């Protein structure tokens, strides 16, 4: 498996994602510059966290027009796996790969903390090895994470099993107190119709070794490996 990690001006989790793939999964990975026109044969694309283009205009709004994103969109349309993490989720929404938008946290605070997620769907390339209903701990670090979409879109996402993760409390309940940003229906991550594109605000690449407080992000990468090798 070869993973392409996109570096936009202002990305700051690209090296973390690369480290996760190369050092922890022992798989091949390459950094792709936003001005590149070629995915260099990558089977999977990671849109990493950060503040691409300084979050000017809106988070992710400018990144979507970069040359490499045209290739990423084409890759996704061919059924190629793409995961957008944090700013990458915002970019995926702006690029139309996923529905909805990520707005300013309702607290107006930048939230950097571990959260508990409940796995809502295992029918995606990035969660097929997870257990539905399992609780995972991962960090978040964002100011614009409030998932927002119209009611019809939310109902469709729910009906089609495309809500992938929800913010929950330690008992697994999606309470308001467990929601770090005011996301509608406590949504932390969603998938496209085919389950090949996933966007999420929490950082699985920062939850891969005990030293970092959690290894719960591993299951996403194990899912990816089994899906790509299948």
């Amino acid at each position, binding site marked *: 498996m070869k993973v392409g990690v996109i570096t936009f001006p202002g990305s700051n989790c690209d090296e973390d994602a690369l480290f996760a793939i190369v050092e922890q999964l022992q798989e091949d990975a390459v950094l792709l510059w936003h001005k590149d026109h070629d995915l260099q044969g990558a089977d999977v694309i990671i849109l990493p966290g950060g503040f691409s283009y300084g979050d000017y205009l*809106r988070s992710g709004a400018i990144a979507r027009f970069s040359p490499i994103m045209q290739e990423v969109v084409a890759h996704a349309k061919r059924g190629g796996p793409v995961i957008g993490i944090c700013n990458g989720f915002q970019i995926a929404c702006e690029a139309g790969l996923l529905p*909805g*938008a990520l*707005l*300013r946290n309702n607290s107006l605070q930048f939230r950097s903390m571990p959260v508990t997620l409940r796995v809502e769907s295992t029918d995606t390339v990035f969660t097929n090895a997870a257990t539905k209903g399992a609780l995972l701990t991962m960090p978040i670090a964002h100011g614009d994470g409030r998932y927002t979409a119209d009611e019809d879109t939310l109902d469709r996402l729910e009906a089609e099993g495309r809500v992938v993760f929800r913010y929950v409390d330690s008992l697994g309940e999606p309470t308001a107190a467990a929601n770090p940003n*005011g996301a509608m229906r406590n949504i932390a991550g969603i998938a496209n119709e085919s389950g090949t594109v996933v966007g999420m605000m929490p950082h699985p690449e920062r939850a891969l070794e005990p030293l970092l407080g959690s290894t719960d992000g591993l299951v996403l990468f194990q899912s990816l490996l089994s899906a790509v090798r299948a």
Partner: protein
Amino acid sequence: MTLFRVSVHIVPRKGLLDPQGKAVTDALHTLGFSAVADVHVGRHLIIETQATDAKAAEASVKEMCSRLLANPVTEDYEIEAVKPV
């Protein structure tokens, strides 16, 4: 072609939670402006663009709004003034 200055307001869609607007409302209330009922925080853009006439300038800015300047999921825009520079 003439250079036009086009002024655009982009605001959060009505009905969506606007925490910035609420924070400003609360701050104004704290300052004693108790008559303030609501505040919405958006963006104001001034775009200078070449066009054959004002109508064409407005049409072009409309397209800019729908393709980049406003997020169709969460924001509304209003083109306020189109004036030759």
